[in-house]
């Protein structure tokens, strides 16, 4: 059985607004705050009069474009992951940050960098990915992820405990790393400053696969929204749904964290934005939440470059500073 929700005019308008916000952020981030004094005109030039020897055009094409694209895709991933988690747990406070995916990646990366005297460690991407998966799985299993009985408070508690443990270990590693501490700290706060096409090619295929998996869970999530009993009676295998959703969430967030470090709270805010804009069907919510996430990260990245130019503030700090007050608002709003 499928539930269909009518698509209203207002929702289409909202989506349009969202896309405009995203696009404008995307375009501004292509040229703003550049050491080369780029202008919108340069982007136009690329389209109309491409010149491979022009430095400005090359900067946009080989540095700015991959960065902006990556920012958007990571935002999309995180937004989608947040929606899946909230849909599954029916808890508006659930988010990938709570899954300890970010802190897991941060922790293993920091520990890995301690092999200081150039003893071969893991490649940093592998380290981050392993950490992300471990952190996530730990919370998933400890939070009773395999039980059919849904228990969101327990999941959140497990997330907090695992997060606390991993954060302390990360700090210890930072203290010991000493002279590289500030370089690590930058990455650990989530940074898009070092993105190139190589990163993009690492990012998109896995993201695509994970997003397809996410789409496949939408029908289940729509029914799940009516309550687990109802979903079960309508022929949904809830355990199987949980496993698929968690796998999708883990993949989406792990890839993102691996590429850009922990960018927190996007996965929390985006789904709320999406629900406010476009109703309840997960088929529509998924792309809209993704787009909201993309717009958020894109603008946060813009902001991160403009606070103390030419230095960059890690984008993860910006999203955290925006995200936490929102989280507090959400918590206080819903009286249970």
């Amino acid at each position, binding site marked *: 059985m499928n539930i269909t929700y009518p698509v209203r005019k207002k929702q289409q308008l909202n989506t349009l607004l969202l896309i405009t916000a995203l696009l404008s952020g995307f375009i501004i981030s292509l040229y703003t705050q550049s050491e080369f004094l780029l202008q919108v005109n340069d982007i136009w030039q690329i389209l109309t009069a491409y010149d491979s020897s022009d430095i400005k055009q090359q900067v946009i094409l*080989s*540095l700015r474009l991959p960065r902006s694209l990556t920012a958007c895709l990571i935002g999309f991933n995180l937004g989608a992951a947040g929606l899946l988690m909230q849909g599954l747990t029916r808890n508006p406070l659930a988010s990938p940050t709570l899954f300890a995916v970010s802190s897991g990646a941060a922790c293993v990366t920091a520990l890995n960098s301690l092999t200081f005297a*150039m003893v071969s460690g893991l490649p940093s991407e592998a380290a981050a990915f392993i950490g992300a998966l471990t952190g996530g799985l730990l919370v998933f299993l400890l939070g009773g992820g395999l039980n059919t009985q849904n228990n969101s408070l327990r999941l959140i508690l497990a997330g907090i405990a695992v997060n606390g443990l991993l954060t302390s270990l990360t700090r210890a590693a930072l203290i010991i790393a*000493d002279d590289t501490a500030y370089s690590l700290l930058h990455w650990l706060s989530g940074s898009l400053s*070092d993105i*190139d096409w*190589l990163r993009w090619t690492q990012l998109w295929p896995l993201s695509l696969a994970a997003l397809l998996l996410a789409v496949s869970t939408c029908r289940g999530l729509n029914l799940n929204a009516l309550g687990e009993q109802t979903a079960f009676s309508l022929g949904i295998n809830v355990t199987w749904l949980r496993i698929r959703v968690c796998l999708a969430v883990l993949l989406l967030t792990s890839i993102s964290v691996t590429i850009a470090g922990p960018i927190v709270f996007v996965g929390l805010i985006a789904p709320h934005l999406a629900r406010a804009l476009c109703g309840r069907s997960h088929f529509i919510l998924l792309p809209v939440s993704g787009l909201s996430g993309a717009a958020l990260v894109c603008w946060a990245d813009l902001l991160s470059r403009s606070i103390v130019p030419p230095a960059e503030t890690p984008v993860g700090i910006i999203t955290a500073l925006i995200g936490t007050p929102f989280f507090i608002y959400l918590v206080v709003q819903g009286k249970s």
Partner: protein
Amino acid sequence: MTQRSALLFFTLLTVQLSVFNLKAQAAVINHDNGTLRLQNPPSRIVVLAFSFVDALAVAGISPVGIADDGDKNRIITSVRNQIGSWQSVGSRYQPSLEAVAALKPDLIIADSGRHQSIYQDLTRIAPTLMLKNRGVTYQENLQVMLKIAAALDKTEQVKKRLQQHQDLMRDLKKQFNSQATFQFAVISDKGMWLHSPESYAGSVIAELGLKSPLKTGGGEAYLAAGFEQLLKTNPDWLFVGQYTRQTVLDKWQKNPLWKILTVSKSPQLVYVSANVWSLAGGMLAAEQIALELASHILP
């Protein structure tokens, strides 16, 4: 009457003389936490930062304990060769006071930036000098070195060596006479950090009359740089100290924009030891930096 006044005069004179004598023996050093008065030159010295080890090596004295992070190789070779063996007293961020006390030092030299919170404890173990190490520049470090020399009663020897060093620096400066720009940076797999003239390596480069590609001002010692900033900075010479085996530079070199950089066209991208250029910070380290620069720049 005359006898008595003569006696008085003599007594006064002896008192005067003995006071004078005492003053001649005691070394008085102003440091960051006040004044330290040392009756006898110390012989068992514990140092809690690398640049002070350098100063001790110049004075020809071996420390009994160093906060070396448990890794003897962190002391650069040129310094290590000039001092005898030492005991590790733990890390620089949290040196074990127990290990320090067990060595029964008669002087402790600590970093006034890092060890402020344990100053009281250190003075209970032994007389303590608090001097600047973290964020120190080349000129500041020379002053610090002279203070250490005064504490050790080795001022003559150190000044002589300093003269040699300054001659060398002046000589090199004359020979360099280059209009090119020079930049030192540390790199890791997480990014690149440019060391401005406010940092130690940067101030040594500046001392040698070499230009920095960075626009002055800001006063920041370390600047995080993405590829775009590096492109804009575009130094003629780039010296890099690696912290990890794989670095962002490996990736940047594959970027088509890499060939815009001056350092891509000529062998002017030089890998150097991060330990010497960034971590050590002392006169001998500065000399090593200067000679390394010379070996690359001078024909």
